[in-house]
C-alpha cells in the first residue's frame, strides 16, 4: 500500500487516558499524528454506535482508552467499555471489516510512555492491516472509472 497513512480515532477518558496523553505531551514524547484523540468523561461513555460511526465515516482503526482495572473514576465504566468493544469486534468480523481494527486499552494518568507507545503500536498494526475496506472499494471503483 503506497503511502497509506491510517486514520485512528482514540476515545480517551478524561481522568486517565487523556491525562496520560497530556503527560506524553509534557514529556515531549513523540507519537504519530495519525491518532486523533477524542476526550470523553469516562471510557464507559463510549457506546457501540460511536465506534461503528467512526469506522463508517472512514477511520481505519479505533481504540478506547480507559483507566486501569479497579481505578475507574466512575467505578466500572472501563469494564462496560471493554465489554462493548469485545461485542463490536465480533460484529465487525461478521461483516468483514475486521474486529482487530478496534481495541480496548487500559492505562493510568501517569503513563505518558504507555500512551505514546500505544499510539505507535496501533498505528503500525492498522498500517499493516491496510485501509478500512469501506473506503478502498469505492476508491478502486472511482479509479477504475477514471
Amino acid at each position, binding site marked *: 500500500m503506497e503511502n497509506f497513512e491510517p486514520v485512528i480515532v482514540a476515545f480517551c477518558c478524561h481522568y486517565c487516558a487523556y491525562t496520560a496523553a497530556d503527560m506524553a505531551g509534557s514529556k515531549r514524547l513523540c507519537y504519530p499524528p495519525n491518532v486523533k484523540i477524542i476526550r470523553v468523561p469516562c471510557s464507559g461513555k463510549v457506546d*457501540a454506535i460511536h465506534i461503528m460511526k467512526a469506522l463508517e465515516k472512514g477511520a481505519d482503526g479505533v481504540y478506547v482508552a480507559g483507566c486501569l482495572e479497579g481505578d475507574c473514576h466512575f467505578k466500572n465504566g472501563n469494564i462496560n467499555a471493554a465489554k462493548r468493544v469485545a461485542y463490536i469486534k465480533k460484529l465487525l468480523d*461478521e461483516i468483514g471489516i475486521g474486529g482487530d481494527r478496534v481495541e480496548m486499552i487500559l492505562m493510568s494518568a501517569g503513563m505518558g510512555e504507555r500512551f505514546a507507545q500505544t499510539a505507535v503500536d496501533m498505528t503500525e498494526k492498522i498500517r499493516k492491516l491496510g485501509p478500512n475496506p469501506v473506503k478502498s472499494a469505492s476508491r478502486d471503483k472511482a479509479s477504475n472509472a477514471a
Partner: protein
Amino acid sequence: MITAERKPMEELIEYLRPYHRILLVGCNECVTVCSAGGRKEVGILSSALQMAFMKEGKTLEVKEMTLERQCDPEYVEELVNEIDQVEAVMSMACGCGVQEIARRFKTKPVFPAVNTEFMGASERQGVWAERCQGCGECVLGLTGGICPIARCSKRLLNGPCGGSTNGKCEVDPDIDCAWQLIWDRLKALGIEDRYEENIAAKDWRTGRGGGPRKIIREDLVK
C-alpha cells in the same frame, strides 16, 4: 417480554443484496428490553449494513425509524410517509411486527432482522430466560408459580423425571430442574401435599396445537 436475537449478518446482507434504499424499523417494546431491536440496535445495524455494502463498492441508504410498537396498526401506519421512498423494509421487531408491516404494505418486501425466540423474563442484566409457552390454560396456581410446561425440558406435569441432578436438568447443567424449583416453592409455601395431587393430561387445544388462536373482546370490537 417476547425475546429475540439478531440474525447473522450474512443472512441479513443476503436479504438486502438487491436493494439500495431501505427502511430499518425498530420497536420500542419487547425487543428494546432484550436489546435486540430497539432504537440503539437499529443504529448499530444500520451502520453495520452500510459498511458491509460499502466494502463491496455499493451503497445502501438506510432510513432509520423506531415505532412505539409494531404489533398495532396505528403505529405501523406511521411508516406510510417513508414507505414509498424505499425499496424494501427490514424490521427488527418480533415476528408479530414483521407480519403487521407485511400485511399493511402488501407490495413492499419485508424482512426480519431478528429471530424471535421465547416469552421470558430478565433473570439479571443481559440474561433473559424462557418462562411461558402460551399454553392457553395456565397451571401456575397449582405449581407454586413456576411453569412446568415452559421450564421443564419434557414439560412434565407430574415431574421430576429420573434425570434431575442437584437441582439441574439432565439436558443442560445451566437449566434449573423446574420440578426442583416447584418442590422448593411448595415447601416454602407450606403446601407440600399439593405435590401428590396428580395433574391430569393437558388439553392442548387451548395452545398452539388447536390451530392459530384469536381473542375477540365483544365489548371492545367497533
